[in-house]
């Protein structure tokens, strides 16, 4: 027995000893400032908080003869209806103070949207009291406390100096040397090209000068001419014989009668044209007057 108690004490002092605790509580009166409230301002901000109950009371002030329904409700946070809604029908009844309590199956606080007490009909609500009960686990987030089960020690990442080889003096010197060599090679290449270009220009000048007797070889010239004549089309060397093509069709006399219908049509068109011209003339005469 003594050994067991020592083991328990040792267990308590082990670094891995851990526990979590469920905290229960109640809110202040949500309807303290009015008949509409926002849950984020009512519920405490604990991770994993769940609402497990609601107690409300109010005094209905009304005429017993009138109709009145009082809704106590909470919308879903995403606006998709009501997470809680209860009605008290006071229609035809005298007003009184009503008190009701409800239990919920631990509904996450994130589901709870705006709450309100709504009066439908004639009458009013006084001294409204809306109190939510809630619970939360102190170790909902195991990393929130080293004593929580599942807590993992945060690994400290050592600060490793970043080595930039481009900043190294030796590397920079070597790179400068290579750059220098490359520049020299490029300069040599440019010089070589300049010299080559100058040489080729000189040769072109020499070769392009037809008056240079040193460059005209009669044999080569004749050979080139012969080659040229051989490659040209032979038709270029022949001339075409000219000829005259005489009229071959001869009309054999006779008269061609006018078409009477065509003539009538032509006359009618002529008459119409004359009328149009006269009309234009008359209108121009009138404008000038």
């Amino acid at each position, binding site marked *: 027995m003594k050994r067991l108690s020592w083991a328990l004490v040792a267990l308590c002092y082990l670094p891995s000893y851990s526990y979590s605790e469920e905290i229960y509580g109640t809110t202040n009166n949500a309807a303290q400032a009015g008949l509409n409230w926002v849950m984020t301002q009512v519920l405490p901000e604990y991770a994993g908080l769940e609402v497990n109950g609601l107690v409300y*009371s109010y005094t*209905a002030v009304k005429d017993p003869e009138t109709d009145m329904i009082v809704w106590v409700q909470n919308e879903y946070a995403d606006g998709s209806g009501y997470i809680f809604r209860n009605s*008290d*029908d*006071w229609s035809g*009844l*005298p*007003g*009184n*103070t*009503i*008190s*009701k309590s409800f239990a919920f199956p631990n509904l996450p606080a994130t589901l709870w949207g705006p709450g309100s007490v709504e009066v439908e009909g004639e009458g009013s609500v006084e001294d409204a009291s809306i109190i939510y009960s809630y619970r939360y686990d102190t170790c909902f987030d195991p990393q929130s406390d080293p004593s929580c089960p599942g807590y993992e020690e945060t690994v400290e990442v050592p600060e490793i100096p970043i080595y930039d080889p481009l900043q190294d003096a030796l590397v920079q010197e070597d790179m400068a040397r290579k750059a220098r060599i490359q520049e020299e090679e490029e300069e040599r290449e440019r010089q070589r090209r300049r010299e080559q270009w100058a040489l080729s220009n000189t040769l072109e000048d020499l070769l392009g000068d037809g008056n240079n007797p040193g460059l005209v070889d009669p044999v080569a010239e004749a050979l080139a001419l012969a080659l040229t004549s051989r490659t040209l089309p032979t038709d270029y060397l022949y001339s075409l014989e000219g000829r005259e093509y005489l009229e071959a069709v001869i009309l054999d006399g006779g008269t061609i009668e006018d078409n009477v219908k065509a003539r009538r049509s032509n006359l009618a068109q002529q008459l119409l044209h004359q009328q149009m011209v006269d009309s234009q003339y008359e209108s121009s005469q009138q404008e000038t007057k």
Partner: protein
Amino acid sequence: MLKIVVPMAASILATEFVQAQTEIIGNVDSKCIIVSETPGVYGNPNPYQLTTAPTSGGVQPIIRFDVLAADYYKAVIEHPVSFSSSPTLDDVVTWTGDVEVSEVSDTDMSTYDSDKVEYDNAHEYQMTVAGSTWFKISSVADYGYNKSFPAGQYTAVVEAECIPL
């Protein structure tokens, strides 16, 4: 031999007759619970008067009735008509009081007050709705004809009963 055996067997059968009894047990829990929520306090606004009126420094006692089954009980509440303990009094104490429904858990209970029956100092309510009903009691004691109460502690009792129908 057979003749002997038969009577013997008969006698054995006669002695082997047994009898047994078994019990049926049932417990009935009351479906009506009375809870004293707020104890009352007498204020002494005038030397001759003790009252539970809050405006006179008193506190009205509140009794809650939890009825689990509707229409099976009636509540009878009696406001005090005598002190259960007090200094010696040599004059008459005039008692007045009232009982009213102060809070309900169902809107239909709001008719309890108008439907109640009063006799003497008793107020009788038919518990026709299941749920909780809070009753607030007021009590005033006037001593003699404007005569001062003797100094001391005064205690009076409110009696509340839940009677099965």
